[in-house]
């Protein structure tokens, strides 16, 4: 059974959503779940947040909307997949639970 938790994060790092997403992801990974986080809108600023890179080292997958990164001049980072809205469309279909933080 697919046990991937999908998370959409569209708010910038100073929002309380960041803390929630970080803790949820850590807990899910600790329980052996797969976690994929899709960043769009101001959420792409998390590429500059070392805590997110730490999550990828623990096994989380992070995908960004490249269009939003280019709009905000956020540089590409090696720990994320430079993606598109198609990645979100697939994540929504494939994840067994999906949470959005807007």
């Amino acid at each position: 059974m697919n046990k991937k938790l999908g998370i959409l994060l569209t708010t910038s790092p100073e929002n309380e959503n960041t803390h929630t997403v970080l803790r949820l992801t850590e807990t899910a990974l600790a329980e052996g779940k797969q976690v994929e986080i899709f960043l769009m809108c101001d959420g792409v600023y998390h590429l500059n947040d070392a805590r997110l890179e730490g999550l990828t080292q623990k096994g989380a997958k992070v995908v960004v909307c490249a269009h939003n990164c280019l709009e905000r001049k956020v540089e590409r980072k090696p720990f994320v997949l430079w993606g598109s809205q198609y990645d979100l469309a697939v994540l929504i279909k494939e994840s067994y639970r999906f949470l959005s933080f807007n």
Partner: protein
Amino acid sequence: MNQVAVIIHKSPFNTLRNSEGLRMAVGLTLEEDNRVTVIFVKDGVYLIGNVTPEKIQSGTIKKHLEALRLLGHRLVVERESMEERGIEGPSVKADVLSRAEVVKILSEANRVIPWQ
């Protein structure tokens, strides 16, 4: 079929957020199993009124609405929210449903994305 409901409930005035939410909704249709319903409630109903994006700094609206409709996905407007704001009818083809009917759509959806 994966039923996805996107709820737009914030005003489109002076923000690009709603435009981005609609762009996301169009993007969700790229996965062919996703059946997308965009639901406009509260101040979100102003999006389906006769808004002029360049005057209210709202970004692209109508192009996304028309794309969703042409791709066979659904636009729903809550009747009570329209009446409360004096909006007589949607400027694009959309289903005007009661609050109870909107709740039914949400309860039957596989995924619900409240967009703020």
